[in-house]
């Protein structure tokens, strides 16, 4: 879906992005993770040409974005940013309709689309349609920002630290919501964050950047494998690396194929090993029952196996 | 910084030199204004006019600064908040009346000379000082005042050692505007008989002597630009 081919961006002598080659598969959430100044936002902004690469090229669906007219390109790519950037003098509905109006959709189609999107991001259309941005909470505003990015049904979304300014609770809600919306719409999402927890919750693919260079990439479990790159160890924290790794591994894989005893706490088969660990600590037990589900025959998870996996 | 001061001093020296040379450059004026019989301004010395101009405008700015600062301090005390509406009203009314109108209105009451100009100068120059000082004092963060009270400072101590120092940059900017405004308005005062660098302009206009007008205009503008430059330099940090 997106291919960065040896792209760099230099300001004077300083390379903000340094020869990055990366492929983002269609339909996945790819998280660009790094500290501030690592070049993750700059890399992302090359996709919709808000930043032009000094070297290399960016392909979307096999086409070089440098060949596309910038405004037309951007109308075909959803864009969500940390400061949300809702236009303060327009109502919620008008804000969501920005791109459809630029594309010249009919009024009726726009109105229908706006209501569908508000419902999709979990806001009651009747209550929120006619509000002004200053009448929204931070979380509500970012939901509208997400709806606005989805308005013209672009196949690709760019999200630049969209939840970083929100309270922790609201942030977790919106992460769950985004995964849900992703599951329903199958968009390709390029998501920039500095928050490792957020990265692990969302990422299908993870790309870790440091000083403009790609330090690691792959599925989260791969990136966090023992003997991970020095940058990764530092970013995730040396002492909690194992804990984060448990979060990337499915619990079902380690369950022994034996019938569970009655009375054991029950863990859903889709849960991660981190969730299994938390449940064991909470219940004070060293075994958990994992009931049968599609493609999994059911079994028992043992403390000893879990410790070995970490 | 030192180089800028040296440059400024050089400019001031050039200004004084030009004032000295003006009555001696009859050839230049004759060449520039061929049709005029007496192109050289000889009624008064340019240095006397400069001195009068500076005394009037700087004196007025000093009075206005004192009044403006006192009013601003009063208006930002808890009890003085009630004066705010009056200050707002004075500001918006003063904007509607040009200084020359005040000079003209004061003329029948105070007579020809420097007095009507001084009145207008004090009125108009105190406004930017007051506005700047009110803005500066208002902008002192409440947390800072709270901390000052917490350390046991009295109200006068807070004003002198916390509020005024913090507001000083804005107050100084207001003072700079006041001085520049004073120098400009003083020149207009020539129409009411105030002796200043504007006098040759007004006299020249009355007599159709463009050479006097040009000389007065050049020196008045030069003084204003010089004063502005000097104040910006003195207040830069």
């Amino acid at each position: 879906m997106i291919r960065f081919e040896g792209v760099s961006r230099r300001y004077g002598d300083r390379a903000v992005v340094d020869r990055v080659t990366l492929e983002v598969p269609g339909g996945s959430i790819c998280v660009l993770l790094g500290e501030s100044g690592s070049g993750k936002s700059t890399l992302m902004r090359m996709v919709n040409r808000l930043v032009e690469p000094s070297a290399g090229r960016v392909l979307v669906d096999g086409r070089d974005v440098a060949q596309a007219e910038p405004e037309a390109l951007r109308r075909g790519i959803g864009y969500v940013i940390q400061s949300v950037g809702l236009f303060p003098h327009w109502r919620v509905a008008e804000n969501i309709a920005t791109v459809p109006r630029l594309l010249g959709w009919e009024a009726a189609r726009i109105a229908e689309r706006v209501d569908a999107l508000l419902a999709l991001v979990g806001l009651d259309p009747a209550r929120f349609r006619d509000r002004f941005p200053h009448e929204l909470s931070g979380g509500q505003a970012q939901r509208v920002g997400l709806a606005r990015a989805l308005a013209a049904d672009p196949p690709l979304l760019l999200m630049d630290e969209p939840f970083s300014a929100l309270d922790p609770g609201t942030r977790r809600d919106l992460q769950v919501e985004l995964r849900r919306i992703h599951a329903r719409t199958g968009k390709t999402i390029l998501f920039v964050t500095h928050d490792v927890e957020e990265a692990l919750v969302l990422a299908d693919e993870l790309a870790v950047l440091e000083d403009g260079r790609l330090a690691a990439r792959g599925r989260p479990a791969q990136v966090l494998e023992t003997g991970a790159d020095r940058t990764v160890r530092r970013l995730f924290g040396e002492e909690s690396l194992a804990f984060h790794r448990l979060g990337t591994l499915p619990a079902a894989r380690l369950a022994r194929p034996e019938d569970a005893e009655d009375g054991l706490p029950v863990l859903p088969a889709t849960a991660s090993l981190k969730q299994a660990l938390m449940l064991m600590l909470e219940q004070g037990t060293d075994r958990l029952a994992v009931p049968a589900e599609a493609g999994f025959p059911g079994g028992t998870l043992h403390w000893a196996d879990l410790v070995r996996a970490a | 910084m030192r180089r800028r001061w040296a440059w400024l001093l050089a400019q001031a020296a050039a200004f004084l030199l030009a004032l000295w040379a003006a009555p001696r450059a009859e050839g230049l004026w004759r060449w520039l204004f061929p049709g005029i019989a007496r192109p050289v301004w000889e009624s008064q010395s340019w240095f006397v006019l400069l001195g009068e101009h500076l005394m009037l405008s700087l004196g007025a700015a000093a009075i206005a600064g004192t009044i403006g600062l006192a009013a601003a301090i009063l208006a930002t005390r808890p009890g003085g908040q009630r004066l705010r509406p009056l200050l707002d009203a004075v500001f918006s009314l003063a904007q509607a009346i040009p200084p020359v109108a005040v000079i003209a209105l004061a003329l029948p009451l105070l007579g020809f000379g420097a007095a009507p100009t001084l009145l207008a100068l004090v009125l108009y120059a105190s406004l930017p000082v007051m506005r700047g000082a009110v803005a500066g004092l208002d902008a002192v963060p409440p947390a800072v005042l709270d901390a000052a009270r917490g350390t046991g400072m009295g109200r006068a101590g807070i004003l002198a050692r916390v509020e005024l120092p913090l507001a000083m940059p804005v107050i100084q900017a207001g003072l700079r505007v006041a001085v520049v405004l004073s120098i400009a308005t003083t020149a207009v005062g020539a129409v009411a008989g105030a002796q200043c660098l504007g006098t040759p302009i007004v006299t020249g206009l009355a007599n159709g002597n463009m050479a006097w007008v040009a000389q007065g205009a050049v020196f008045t503008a030069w003084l204003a630009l010089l004063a502005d430059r000097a104040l910006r330099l003195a207040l830069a940090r």
Partner: protein
Amino acid sequence: MAPRPAALSARATPEAAAPPREATAVALLAAGAALCPFLLGWLSVAPNRLLSPRPAELPMTPAVGPALGLFLLGCLAMLLLARRERLLPWAEAAAALALAALLATAGLGARAALEGASPLARAMPAAGTWLSMLLLALAAGSCAAGRGGTPARFLLLSALGAAALLAAGLLDGLSVVREAAARGGEIRAALGQHLALAGGALALALSLAVPLGLLALARPRLEAALMAVANGFQVIPSIALFGLLMGPLAALAAAFPALRGWGVGGIGPAPATLAIAAYLLLPLASALLAGLRVAGPGLLDAARGQGLTSRQVLLRLRIPLGRGVILGGLRVAAVQAVGLATLAALIGGGGLGALVFQGIGQLATDLILLGVLPVVALSLLVDALLAALQSALEVGR
């Protein structure tokens, strides 16, 4: 200020019962306005146009009495009405009533004072009356301070009141009104010239400031240069700038006589318009740039990221969000233009300043007033109109 009865303050909630912030200033000004004429004199009478006026008693005729009573009543009403937040607009109206009654008192008093005197004798308001008018205007301004500072209601009602008094002939005794009647045509012509000067300068300055401001928006060097030039003009005293422009323009007209047909010359409206326009550059350009920057970086990033073109960003985002600030700059510039146009008369540009300078030359107060009063009225009118437009736009947000 009488203390409130204990029972009342005990019953009412503190917010409802507390007088608004404006109350103190209005009360002081109202009291001052009522006292001033009694302390500093109502009327002055001069035997003829050349001799200086002397203070005169206010003749207590049956006509003057009610007008005086109405004036004092207006001052009292203003003081009392200003003690309730929601009655402040009415206090403003009371100030207009007091002003009209004061004018009527002075006019009727002047008529009575001149009765039996020589036809050359002239009567005019004394310092106390003038000061009282100033205080009433400030009181009205204080009432309006919470709503943007322009006492539009007071200005409108006072203008109507003064017009009605003039039409009824009640002010005919005042020397300034006689002078105005004698010079009606001259005043109208001067007003027209004044409007042309101010309007022409504003149009000229706009035609420079708008394109340059738009260009400077994304070019820091151009912005620095534009601001340096605009600031420089503000520093140069207006009278010097007028003088400086005369020489070059006279030379230009001498070199190209065809330009004279366009009004270009060292003397006349052309240098005046140019000089005024130069002063308006700073308020116009700085407000334009500030207004266009109300839409912050985050907003612009979001807009560009969604594919708005720079033209769409300007028209749909920058201008709608910044129009209040931009209009504020226009308001300042327009008021300045009206004031600066007064000086145009110095270099033969005409306008109301011609009356003022003629009056200064003859030390004739009435003539000065005939120039100054329309200037003040005009700038107040322009200010009030643009302020109303500004607040209408803010509400439309």
